């Protein structure tokens, strides 16, 4: 039918017009989205990411096209459009509605069919009469122009490079990430080396597996703050591990025992004392273990040990253990006095190490008691005129042997803990340096000559020759006074701008302050927590040094 053809043409025209309009608007939307996306990067100094840009633009245009395709005009809308455009006074609309109501058998048409035919014929005449050339597509030029311009500008913005600040920031982040990774790898290597070099006791004391796990858990990031957090976390864990090692108490007890052992002349005591002073507690423990009484084998069970032999041995051992136990008693007396004074000054009871004796000290005390019993028993046997020891003496000897074994094991453990503690402190110190390196605040400690490997300290006072070390790219030379011990008083620093001599008075003053304060807190009336706190403080803020043994004490 002519009307159908006419309306179909109108419908197609309207759909195309709608499509053009929708696509134009989606082009504008894409342009706006593109500009917003571009500005969100450019204003922050970053370069635009093309991989995010194109899908965004493409999807907005595609969505617009889909909407335009789906949203089509109906026949009624086409009729309405035609009526309005050619001022047909609802002719087309009435025609299609009357036709559809006539076709619909269920609806009762109130209109005379003759009238309907007349209306249809009028509609056909009008459809033939109207100038269909008036159906021109309207292009929303302004919208298309604006959308295209915005798109072009946003595409141009793709070429804008990131700002210098951002480039530097990204480079900095990359540097932090790569250096953090490097540090972590080095830590892992170091821990692997420790795993190979340490014995089981030391590994246990060091909690090496835990350390490895912590290092593995370190997150590598380019964010400076986050990287600092990671290092701080690890450092905290190491510090926690260190605080949980309670070897200090044992060490102090052993030191006191060494001081007491000076009062005896026996060779064994001297040997043990030397080992303790050198902190070779395991060797000292082995020497103590070697002093065990002979163990009765099956063949010699019927034979008892000669009394004199046992007496001599017991006396020798007693001489050592008595001194060692005395050291413990005197320190307990002084600490209890100090505790009571400390309680008066602090107001609160400070429980902890002061009230608890060290395990080694208690073992030594117990050993001394057992030896005293043995001596008494042997004396009794001598007075009884016996030449061989009795069963009780034998059992006491066995008991003493067991105690010696346990004491030796404990001292080996303490030695392992000391070494582990030393390693951990070195590790912590190295971690601090590595943190500075990872955050770009200094060069790699081991990368240039003059610096020592992370985890190993150097002794300023032993340096007698010129030693160049690099600090942040500048050359510094320490000058010492020949034939005199002690740290350097000045250093020659060579920088890009020239060479100058800087005095090291400040570091000298620091060291003297540290010594005076540490000696002050060694007083007996000072609480143990304060002593250990002061020590920890100076260890954490200063470069860790192996304790130097004064020459006159060797």
């Amino acid at each position, binding site marked *: 039918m002519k009307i159908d053809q006419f309306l179909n043409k109108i419908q197609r025209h309207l759909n195309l017009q709608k499509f053009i309009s929708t696509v134009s608007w989606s082009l504008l939307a894409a342009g706006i989205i593109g500009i917003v996306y571009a500005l969100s990067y450019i204003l922050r100094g970053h370069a635009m990411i093309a991989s995010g840009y194109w899908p965004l633009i493409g999807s907005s245009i595609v969505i617009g096209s889909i909407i335009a395709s789906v949203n089509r005009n109906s026949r*009624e809308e086409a009729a309405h459009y035609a009526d309005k455009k050619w001022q047909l*006074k*609802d*002719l087309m*609309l*009435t*025609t299609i*509605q*009357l036709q559809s*109501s006539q076709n619909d058998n269920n609806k009762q048409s109130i*209109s*005379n069919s*003759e*009238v*309907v*035919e*007349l*209306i249809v014929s*009028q509609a056909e005449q009008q459809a033939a009469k109207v100038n269909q050339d008036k159906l021109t597509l309207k292009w929303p030029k302004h919208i298309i122009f604006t959308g295209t311009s915005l798109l072009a500008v946003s595409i141009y913005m793709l070429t804008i490079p990131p700002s210098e600040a951002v480039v530097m920031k990204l480079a900095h982040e990359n540097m932090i990430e790569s250096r953090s990774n490097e540090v972590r790898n080095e830590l892992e290597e170091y821990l692997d080396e420790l795993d190979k070099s340490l014995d089981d006791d030391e590994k246990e004391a060091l909690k090496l597996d835990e350390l490895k796990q912590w290092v593995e858990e370190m997150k590598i990031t380019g964010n400076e703050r986050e990287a600092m957090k990671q290092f701080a976390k690890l450092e905290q864990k190491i510090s926690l591990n260190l605080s949980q090692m309670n070897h200090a108490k044992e060490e102090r007890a052993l030191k006191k025992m060494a001081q007491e052992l000076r009062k005896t002349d026996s060779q064994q005591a001297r040997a043990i004392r030397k080992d303790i002073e050198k902190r070779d507690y395991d060797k000292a423990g082995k020497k103590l273990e070697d002093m065990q009484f002979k163990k009765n084998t099956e063949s010699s069970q019927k034979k008892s040990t000669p009394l004199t032999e046992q007496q001599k041995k017991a006396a020798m051992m007693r001489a050592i253990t008595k001194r060692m136990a005395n050291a413990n008693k005197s320190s307990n007396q002084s600490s209890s006095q100090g505790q009571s004074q400390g309680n008066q000054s602090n107001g609160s009871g400070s429980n902890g190490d002061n009230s608890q004796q060290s395990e080694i000290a208690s073992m030594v005390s117990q050993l001394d008691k057992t030896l005293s019993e043995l001596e008494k028993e042997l004396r009794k046997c001598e007075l009884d005129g016996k030449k061989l020891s009795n069963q009780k003496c034998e059992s006491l000897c066995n008991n003493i042997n067991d105690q010696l074994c346990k004491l030796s094991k404990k001292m080996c453990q303490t030695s392992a803990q000391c070494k582990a503690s030393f390693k951990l402190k070195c590790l912590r110190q190295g971690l601090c340096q590595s943190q500075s390196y990872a955050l770009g605040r200094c060069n790699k400690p081991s990368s240039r000559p003059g610096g020592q490997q992370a985890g190993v300290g150097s002794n300023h006072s032993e340096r007698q020759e010129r030693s160049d070390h690099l600090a942040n790219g500048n050359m510094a030379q320490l000058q010492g006074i020949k034939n005199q011990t002690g740290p350097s008083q000045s250093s020659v620093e060579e920088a890009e701008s020239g060479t100058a001599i800087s005095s090291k008075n400040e570091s000298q003053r620091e060291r003297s302050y540290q010594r005076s304060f540490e000696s002050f807190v060694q007083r007996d009336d000072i609480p143990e927590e304060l002593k250990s706190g002061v020590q920890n403080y100076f260890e954490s803020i200063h470069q860790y040094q192996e304790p130097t043994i004064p020459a006159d004490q060797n």
Partner: protein
Amino acid sequence: MTQTISSPIEEAAEHFKATFKTIRQEVGKFIVGQDDIIENVLISICCGGHVLLEGVPGLGKTALVNTLSQALNLDFQRIQFTPDLLPSDVVGTQVLIEENGHRQLQFQKGPVFCNILLADEINRATPKTQSALLETMQEKRVTVANKTHSIGLPFFVLATQNPIENDGTYALPEAQLDRFFFKLYVTLPNHDDFKEILNRTGGIEQPEIKAVANGEDILKMGHTLRQVAISDEVQDYLVKAVRMTHPENDDSPQEIKQYVRNGASPRAAQSILAAARGRALLDGRFHVAREDVDECAIPAMRHRLILSFEGEAEGILADDLIRKALSAAAK
């Protein structure tokens, strides 16, 4: 030579257009200007409705009705309403007469028994007299002494009101205003029309009006326009427009809600539809368009919209409110 065969409906439509045009032309010989008034009055006659004319005296309201009656060759009567007019003066009464020696009551028909009735200054009569006429207009019959007398068709009442001189008048109640098909305002003619009036009426010879149609033509025209079709959409528009005049309707414009007490009734919609059909036929169409509805809405609804006190106090015009309703319905 080919001849196009017209269908009956086409012939009827042609007859409608031709007769309408002829009557208009004939009336136009005497009545100067007022083309809209003449057209609307003719449409009302064709639709079987009555018209309320409002205008100051001397604008030719009576002359219009007179001329119409001459052109249509219909029986014309005029009633001048006064406060002392009785209902019996309008509809008729029973009179005692003596016939063949017997006295009996005989019904004397009143002036309403005509085809075209001019009810001049209807608002001057008492409500009782008004209601007598208005009942007749609606029922097209008179009941007196339990006897019903039908009035011949067509029956058309053209009532007039004087917008000035409101002293001693009785305003038509809303229910009775609703019976009028259209309310038309007769305005002062323009300068040229004024001159033409003087020329036509001031001379020795006055235009002679011939009968160009009759009652049957009017009835036929009325039947023809009933066949004009209306689409659902246009009908929806018409209904929406009438509903928009009601303040209780949620979609009504704010002005309607503020200034209208009561909106137009379904009778208004019937009047609009009938008149729109007439306009469509005059336009040569067999379907009603929205434009037809817009043209007929104002005269059909202006007397049916009851303004609120606020609306009356602010001098709001019903025509403006109807235009607002039509705009709202078009959205």
